[in-house]
């Protein structure tokens, strides 16, 4: 049976993962784009992204686009798997109500 994941269950991290798994596997979201989607501050988003990166659920890439530094974020294969297991666990709890 699928289990809940404590790292992902936190509200902001849950929403970050939901946004990232919506993308195709070869796509990444730009940091400020993700920040605007989530309506959080830079610092808040940065802190949650570090936790997800440490857990191996996301990858953070830094690049220069038109001479400006950009940060891109994407979900790892493991991150997608853990997230879908978390969603399955949530649905199982709801069904057992």
């Amino acid at each position, binding site marked *: 049976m699928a*289990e*809940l*994941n*404590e790292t992902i*269950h936190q*509200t902001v991290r*849950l*929403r970050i993962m*939901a*946004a990232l*798994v*919506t*993308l*195709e596997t*070869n*796509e*990444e*979201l*730009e940091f*400020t*784009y*993700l920040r605007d*989607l*989530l309506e959080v501050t830079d610092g808040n988003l940065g802190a949650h992204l570090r936790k997800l990166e440490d857990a191996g659920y996301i990858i953070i890439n830094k690049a220069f686009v038109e001479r400006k530094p950009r940060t*891109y974020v994407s979900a790892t294969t493991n991150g997608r798997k853990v997230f879908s297991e978390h*969603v399955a666990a*949530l*649905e199982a*709890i*709801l069904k*057992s*109500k």
Partner: protein
Amino acid sequence: MNISPTEAEEALTAIQTMMQKTRRAISSSGAYKFLILWGAIWMVGFLGSQFLPKEIAGYVWIGLDILGGILSAIIGIRMNRGVRTSVPTSSGKRIAIFWLLLFLYCFAAVAVAWPVDGKQLAMFIILFVTVGWIAMGLLLSFASVWWGLALLGLSLVGYFLLPDIFYLLMAFLGGGGMIALGIYVRNRW
């Protein structure tokens, strides 16, 4: 880790909301710009057809179409800058190429059918633009497919049933409608 069914329901709702918001943000990030651009071009072009001498109106249309093609390509390339893909040919570039090819097809079709009068030329442009619109709708936001079909229907009704006010109908209902829809898409999504 244990949570109540109510918490689980709230978490699932938050996930669904975020996924929907992300999909909409990505898909609508540039679609409205095409609508406003082509709405403005239609309004100016058809008002020109109504009030300017035929030859000058023809040149106005050619200029507007070239401008529209270039701006559509730029919008296509700049779309979804918040999303980066590892695939070499991004969807934005493909969209830009699609619009450029569509205009080449339009010019070719007009050349094959030449000579055509002003209304026929306008209908050629409308047919190709609405094909492009519907294709964009299928790719980016399915709801706008119905608006594209409605515009196509309106144009055909004007062409066959209301030829005397065809240009004015296209300027205000066609062009104005596209601008209004573009603003609506931008604000709603």
